[in-house]
């Protein structure tokens, strides 16, 4: 003890000195310096934030404009009203599904069950509506029950994912097969069910107020999606979970319920997409959703929503869907052979993400 006394006294000298200094600093900081400094920094931050919020969608918009420009040079029919309406019709179903997919990806998860859910819902719906196989025509109840099937699949995915902690990749991959299986079993071995309701036939691509009906539906869904994401508890907690689920839990937020809800919403939207696809095709088919997943996921990614969750949004996804639909349509209109279409789309996807990431490259950055 005695041997240390010199040391301890030096320590307390330091402590006292530091204490004094701190008083000085605290006073300095309290008066004068801080407020101006903070104000200057804040205005800088806001400007940066606003710019950053725009920068990415802006580059997407530029890319879209370039594509549209190139395609309209290659084929003058590209920019006609009828082709634009055609593009909007084609983008409607992917848009509806992509709103749900964006929410799921914002969670940091993924939903691969899209096509299965579309099949199961579409098949349930058409078999319960007026169709060429006869059977029950439940009218509006067909919608309720069909969307109920989607809801059940979505809730099941969500529950297995959250309660059993199975990665969403596998849960929804499994649910893809399950949905397809449900559709296949419902379909049975009978004739193709065709839609009998004349009012519904071709409804999706019919034009009202200048836009195709299905696109109006998509607009409604997008609007609702943006509202949910921006101004509801589910939406905000979704973003929070994407940022850090640990914090969500330690803050006592309802992570469990929100995750299940998001999977349910996504499945419902896939289901709605399935019904519209069935209406569009006029025929019930278990594979009515084929190919949708591989538009939707790249669209979300190209839109700039992070697969890790927490960053991104629905409007950017909308741009992503447009980019891919226009690309698809433009390639056909400019006469690119079907064999090369997947390569061109793939190359543009790669180019888009490399372009977007290039400026943010950093030796310490972690890209997964």
């Amino acid at each position: 003890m005695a041997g240390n006394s010199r040391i301890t006294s030096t320590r307390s000298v330091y402590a006292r000195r530091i204490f004094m200094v701190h008083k000085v600093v605290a006073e300095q900081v309290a008066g004068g310096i801080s407020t101006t400094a903070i104000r200057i920094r804040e205005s800088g931050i806001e400007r940066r934030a606003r710019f950053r919020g725009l920068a990415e969608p802006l580059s997407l918009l530029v890319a879209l404009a370039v594509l549209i420009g190139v395609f309209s040079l290659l084929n003058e029919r590209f920019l006609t009203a009828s082709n634009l309406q055609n593009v909007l019709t084609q983008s409607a179903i992917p848009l509806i599904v992509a709103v749900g997919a964006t929410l799921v990806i914002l969670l940091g998860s993924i939903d691969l069950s899209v096509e299965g859910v579309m099949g199961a819902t579409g098949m349930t719906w058409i078999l319960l509506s007026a169709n060429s196989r006869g059977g029950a025509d439940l009218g509006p109840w067909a919608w309720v029950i069909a969307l109920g099937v989607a809801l059940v699949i979505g809730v099941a995915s969500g529950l297995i994912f959250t309660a059993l902690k199975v990665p969403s990749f596998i849960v929804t991959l499994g649910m893809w097969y399950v949905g397809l299986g449900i559709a296949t079993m419902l379909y049975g071995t009978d004739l193709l069910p065709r839609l009998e309701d004349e009012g519904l036939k071709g409804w999706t691509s019919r034009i009202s107020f200048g836009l195709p009906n299905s696109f109006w539906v998509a607009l409604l869904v997008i609007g609702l999606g943006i509202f949910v994401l921006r101004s509801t508890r589910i939406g905000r907690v979704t973003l929070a979970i994407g940022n850090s689920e640990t914090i969500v839990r330690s803050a006592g937020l309802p992570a469990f319920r929100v995750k299940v809800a998001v999977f349910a919403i996504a499945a419902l939207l896939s289901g709605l997409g399935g019904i519209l696809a069935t209406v569009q095709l006029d025929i019930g088919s278990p594979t009515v959703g084929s190919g949708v997943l591989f538009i939707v996921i790249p669209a979300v990614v190209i839109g700039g929503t992070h697969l890790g969750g927490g960053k991104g949004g629905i409007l950017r996804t909308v741009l992503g869907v447009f980019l891919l639909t226009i690309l698809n349509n433009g390639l056909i209109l400019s006469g690119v052979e079907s064999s090369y279409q997947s390569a061109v789309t793939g190359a543009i996807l790669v180019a888009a993400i490399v372009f977007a990431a290039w400026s943010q490259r950093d030796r310490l950055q972690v890209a997964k």
Partner: protein
Amino acid sequence: GCTSTAGGTATGSSGPIAKEDLVLVASVINTTNPYFIANIEGAKALSKKLDIPLEIIDSQGSSQTEISKIQAILAQGKKVVMFVNTVASSDTPTIVDAVKRAGGYVSIWWNKPDNFEPWDAGDNFVAFQKHAGVDSGRCNAKAIGDALGGKGNVIMFPGVEDSTTSATRVAGFEAEMRENYPDIKILEKQASNWDPQLANQNSKDLIAKYGDQINGVWSADDGMQLGALQAFDDAGLLNSVKFASDGLYPDTVKLMKEGYGNNAIVGETFHRGYMASAIGLYTAYQAAIGEIVPSELPKDKRDSFFDIKCVTPETLGDYAKYDTDTAAADFVDNLVETGPWDTEPATLVGGGGPEVLPKS
């Protein structure tokens, strides 16, 4: 040590098998396409007629699934009489090999490698059977060509690009147009992967591209045609465009009969899935019970083309009888009576060796 592998020992058995020991097996590509569902129907009808149990294999569109499921059944030691609608041509050697090792008998439909012939593989590979694609394509081309009065523009929707079935139909269609309808122009081909949804989308894009220049639409199967019809209907163009395709699905029959879209559908080639499976299975069955000895058959009976019927709205009535509730059972009754190669409307019209594509 190193041994020979892949499921049981190689027997390559010949000699008749007692009927009680047999199992019928029908392997289809999926269970959601009307054609494959009809395959199952035919197999069921034959199973009932012969009083032999039946197993169905759903390949789920995957060669690997197909092969391993077939092997799974073979491994149980059953003596199989098998009909396989192969997912890809390249699956055939593997399947034949497995069946041979298990001492079963198999008929393959639609797809096989050109150089892999039944007579080279032994008696267990009883036969390869198909409807000739070139003829089918020609039938459709004639229907459209005539309906358009030899003038106009046509778009085409092939199936999966590397499918022989689709490629032969495309070749036949193009050859017929080139040879006999020089004033008809093929505007564009968009492979639509046997997918109605994709054909629907591609139709929309091509409508946007060509508008009312399009006078005729050809699809490699009726599924895609249903998708295309809807797109043209939506665009309000149905009344002025003529359609032709392969398969004559019951849905198509109905549309043709109704005169849908100003008699939009002008030509179809006819075949029924139940006929294919029943013929395939029955051929293999005859070999299994020793009724026929494959190696003693002429080559054209082991690598066969069946009759292609070109159906037009006028002749449609003749085919109604093949879609009644008892049609499959009736066909099987006839089949057992007249044998695998001579049952109307699927009679053998020749063959032997790969289909010869018309020169372009």
